[in-house]
């Protein structure tokens, strides 16, 4: 049976110590399968971004384990995690996290170049990804010469460039109008339909409804889930 692309098992994350302790996550388990988009909803401060940064190997859990594409992130070590981030994981940050001194195309090409792709090949892939998000003609502009929605699209292009198996998107629709937000969701959904696994953090029910499953988080815990569990996951439970 197919393995999930992302699996979190009993993940907790505690920030600080003693009186200042914050339990951002308190034992979260979830899986995302290839072809599936999972939405995560919950109030501000409930742990959504914490969950996503841990899933993307940008932060490590205090306890519990994380597997991406069959690889345990703890065992992968710092360099293994960095490689996974460059090659398998596309991350859309809550703030776009673009590098102001680089053009749109350079921003998108960056993960490929860091992974050792030649400059020309990386630029070509970057321009193709920018086309895909509707930014053809903007490749050589700098982020501060573009609107918020256009910057957000650069961030999406950077997350989907080079066939990522796992797309993690933290509020990718930010303060966009509904039409532009829908366009962004359409792009993420298309990647999942093409075989990636996606996890989307959003406050907006309309965007969550693009997902196959919606997971509700409160105070660092998964409290509820709506939607269809994929067949692969059901089969696995039967096997277990």
């Amino acid at each position, binding site marked *: 049976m197919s393995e999930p692309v992302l699996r979190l098992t009993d993940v907790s994350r505690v920030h600080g110590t003693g*009186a200042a302790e914050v339990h951002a996550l308190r034992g979260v388990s979830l899986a995302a399968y290839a072809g599936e988009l999972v939405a995560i909803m919950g*109030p501000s401060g409930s742990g959504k971004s914490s969950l996503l940064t841990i899933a993307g190997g940008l932060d490590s859990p205090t306890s519990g384990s994380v597997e991406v594409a069959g690889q345990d992130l703890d065992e992968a070590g710092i360099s293994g995690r960095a490689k996974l981030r460059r090659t398998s994981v596309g991350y859309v940050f809550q703030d776009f996290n673009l590098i102001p001194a680089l053009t749109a195309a350079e921003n998108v090409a960056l993960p490929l170049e860091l992974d050792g792709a030649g400059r020309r090949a990386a630029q070509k892939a970057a321009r193709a990804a920018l086309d895909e998000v509707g930014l053809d003609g903007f490749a050589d502009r700098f982020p501060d010469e573009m609107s918020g929605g256009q910057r957000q699209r650069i961030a999406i292009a950077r997350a989907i460039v080079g066939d990522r198996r796992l797309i993690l998107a933290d509020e990718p629709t930010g303060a966009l109008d509904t039409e532009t937000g829908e366009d962004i969701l359409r792009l993420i959904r298309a990647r999942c339909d093409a075989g990636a696994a996606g996890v989307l953090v959003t406050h*907006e*029910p*309309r965007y*969550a*409804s*693009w*997902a196959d499953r*919606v997971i*509700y988080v409160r105070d660092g815990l998964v*409290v*509820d889930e*709506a*939607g269809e569990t994929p067949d692969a996951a059901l089969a696995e439970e039967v096997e277990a």
Partner: protein
Amino acid sequence: MSVKHALLALLEKPRYGYELRAEFEQRTGASWPLNVGQVYTTLSRLERDGLVEAGGTDAEGRSLYQLTEAGQAEVKGWFDTPVERTQPQRDELAIKLAVAVAVPSVDVGKVVQQQRNATMQALQGYRRQARSGAGDDLPGGLVLDRLVFAAEAEIRWLDHCESRLRRAAASSTAPEPVQPEGESR
């Protein structure tokens, strides 16, 4: 509301009853099916009120209806006036939650969660309809959007209810603060 006004507006050119019904359903994305009986009853009332009149027959001999001058004025008035924000007659969900809060044996949080899941599933259903092309024509798309926005509003309201409930529960179980907040350590 006004199936009456919608039908009148669609008589901007003469039509026969069956055609009018098909036109209504097509324009509104078949979200509110009308039976042909309803259409003819409405037409005869409109005729009685002087808003439509017989407009001859078409090539196949079907009787056409057309707007009178009063009918045209009525249509114009309809479009020129915003729809009244009527108090919803009885909003079952609001009543259910209000009563649930008052009945101690009911787990209100669960009522909220179940409703939210059901509404999210409806929203996912609209999404599937939209993705399968149901909203590709402009009028049908606008109607589908309306359903999406309404479901979205309901889910937001349920989220809001949940956090109000949690706040209320927290303040009723929390011990009386001895000191002002932030100075307790």
